[in-house]
């Protein structure tokens, strides 16, 4: 099985530890991961902001970089959703049958990390050790976009030492919403503050999610209010073992 990592532009640029954790987790599970260096961005921000022409150029780049792999793994449910649900529409608009063919070939091969672990590798216990209290924010794209369901919860419950605490109002959006966060900052912050309040109610040490973007928004709010709760991507928790130092490598 030829497996490629789509690290996503945000993780690549701002949160490399999420990408490194994904690589170390997959390698620990015996998967050889390629990082096609031609990759950049799926175009999500541009699609969701109305810049479809730019997004189509990025999509062409994505399809070229990831052609020929059996599986593409991304530690981001919203980017997976973009490839799955938006690429076919962009290709359709471009009116280019070759592009449509490439999308039909590549799109079904993309997996969110949780999907790849649970559905493709058939594992729930990834051999992780993380002796901390954790609450999980199911982001909108993971919950309603690509329907991750209980996969992340099953993965977290199998982590030794980890105590998972339910997040109240877990179905509610955190208010990030991509460029919504800067186009409508007041509503975005109001929603995010409510989410942070619910996170604090759990008393958990660490807030985990499948999307770094939502965590950047929530982490920014927590940090401004000297909150104490750490944010970690699911991959970073699952990558922890007894040997790796109990999860204190980096939790921003």
């Amino acid at each position: 099985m030829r497996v490629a990592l789509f690290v996503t532009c945000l993780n690549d640029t701002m949160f490399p530890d999420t990408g490194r954790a994904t690589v170390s987790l997959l390698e620990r599970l015996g998967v050889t991961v390629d990082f096609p260096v031609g990759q950049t961005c799926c175009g999500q921000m541009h699609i969701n902001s109305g810049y479809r022409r730019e997004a189509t150029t990025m999509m062409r780049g994505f399809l070229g970089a990831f052609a020929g792999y059996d599986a593409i793994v991304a530690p981001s449910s919203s980017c997976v959703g973009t490839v799955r649900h938006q690429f076919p529409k962009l290709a359709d608009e471009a009116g280019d049958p070759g592009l449509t063919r490439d999308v039909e070939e590549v799109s079904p091969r993309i997996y969110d990390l949780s999907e790849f672990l649970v559905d493709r590798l058939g594992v729930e216990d990834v051999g992780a050790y993380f002796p901390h209290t954790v609450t999980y924010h199911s982001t909108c794209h993971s919950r309603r976009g690509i329907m991750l369901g209980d996969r992340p919860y099953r993965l977290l419950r199998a982590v030794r030492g980890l105590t998972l605490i339910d997040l109240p109002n877990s179905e509610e959006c955190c208010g990030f919403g991509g460029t919504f966060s800067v186009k409508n900052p007041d509503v975005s912050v109001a929603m995010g503050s409510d989410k942070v309040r619910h996170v604090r109610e759990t008393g958990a040490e660490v807030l985990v999610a499948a999307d770094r973007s939502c965590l950047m928004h929530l982490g920014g709010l927590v940090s401004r209010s000297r909150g104490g709760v750490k944010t970690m991507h699911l991959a970073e928790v699952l990558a922890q073992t007894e040997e790796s130092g109990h999860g204190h490598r980096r939790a921003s």
Partner: protein
Amino acid sequence: MSRAFIGMPAFPAGAKEALGNPQLRSNLHHATTTIRDKRARVIAELPEWEDLRLSGAAIKDDVGRHLDRYLEQFEAEFTAAGGHVHWARDADEANRIVVDLVRATGETEVVKVKSMVTVECALNEALAEAGITALETDLAELIVQLADDLPSHILVPAIHLSRGEIREIFLANMSGVRDDLTDDPADLAGSARAYLRKRFMSAKVGISGANFMIADTGTLVVLESEGNGRMCLTLPETLISVVGIEKMLPTWSDLEVFMQLLPRSSTAERMNPYTTMWTGAHAGDGPKNVHVVLLDNGRTRALADPVGRQALRCIRCSACLNVCPVYERVGGKAYGSVYPGPIGAILNPLLHSVDNGPVEKSLPFASTLCGRCFEVCPVRIDIPDVLIHLRGRVVEETHHGLPGAEELGMRAAGLVLAKPGLLGAAQRAMGVASRLLSHRSTIGALPIPGWGANWSGARDIPVPPRQSFRRWWRRSHRSELPIPPSAQPQTRSETP
């Protein structure tokens, strides 16, 4: 666009103002979460709910495809049953028709059934200009009218007001109200009942909208909770109904689907208390002069949009408002348009076009695309998808003028993100910045106006890492640098 809503600020400004009102936040939170939970309970009772949604969507899509035929069929049936059918291209035409019909009766007062489409047309304002007083008889709509306020919800127009506020409005503006009125709901409803009853008995003209019109029988249908609608629909001599052309259902039996979808989605009831149906006019039974004004007002424009046309399936249940996290925090008036919430954010730009003004331009962006609206929509309108589509239209329209800071930024980001080399260079520059900021873990508020300040007003920015992921990969996996499996990947998709 309703005149009553003209000059409202675009969404971000309206939202900011609304967020500053803690009473509004608390009223909205209480009301939306209550109805949301009730709805979820009554829908869980129906194992075939998803099939009903699919049926509802399919019936409405068929209406859209054959609207010309169904409208003429309805006209023929309604006319044959003794009713009169009028056609209105836009709000002004509809208002002229209604004003002329009321004038012909010689009356200067009309009673009204709650109707969104007459708010859309600003009919009350047009009647007032013609010297005709329109009395709203839906309790919540009456509250809004007495307060000289604007409705803020499709179904519950006074959702933004608390019982205490309603009591104050009644004491100040309702003639004949008792001085010792309390804020007990029964007491408030009782005083409105006494106020309205006299007017029902003397009204000669009633004005309504309709929830559905049935093509094969020529029937109009109104669903309501209070019974005040039934008073207006049965007691007056003349009844005038303004109906958007998308309200069509092909056959009587299609009601079976919609009578299950609508009450559960709107008021979270298995069945609404009052459903009134009428087909033309009947001697000795109800109004003698029965009119319907069929209104386009942008609906054919929306129908021409292949992605947006699904918005015409809307049955105005307002389930999307009640689950929307944005609506819950800012309320309806922040949207600056007759139809608020997620459906309003797509319906207004579709009816009036995205370049109609700042409100229409801002609405497609008034959402985090969280997807809850699509989850609850009884006719499966994929609101997030239509929002994304309309955002593309806004950018296209804006593109004709000089590019602003946002457009320049997004186009520049597009260039960088399209080339791995440029992205790597940008990341290396950020790595230098990171070293300069090595004494801190986050960046605080930025003084430069724009997106940076919008982000950092309440949220810290993480300091960029010293090395990007791709740089780390190059260093750690150099020996096993993968060879791309396809020889010339970039050219594959260029040639069909």
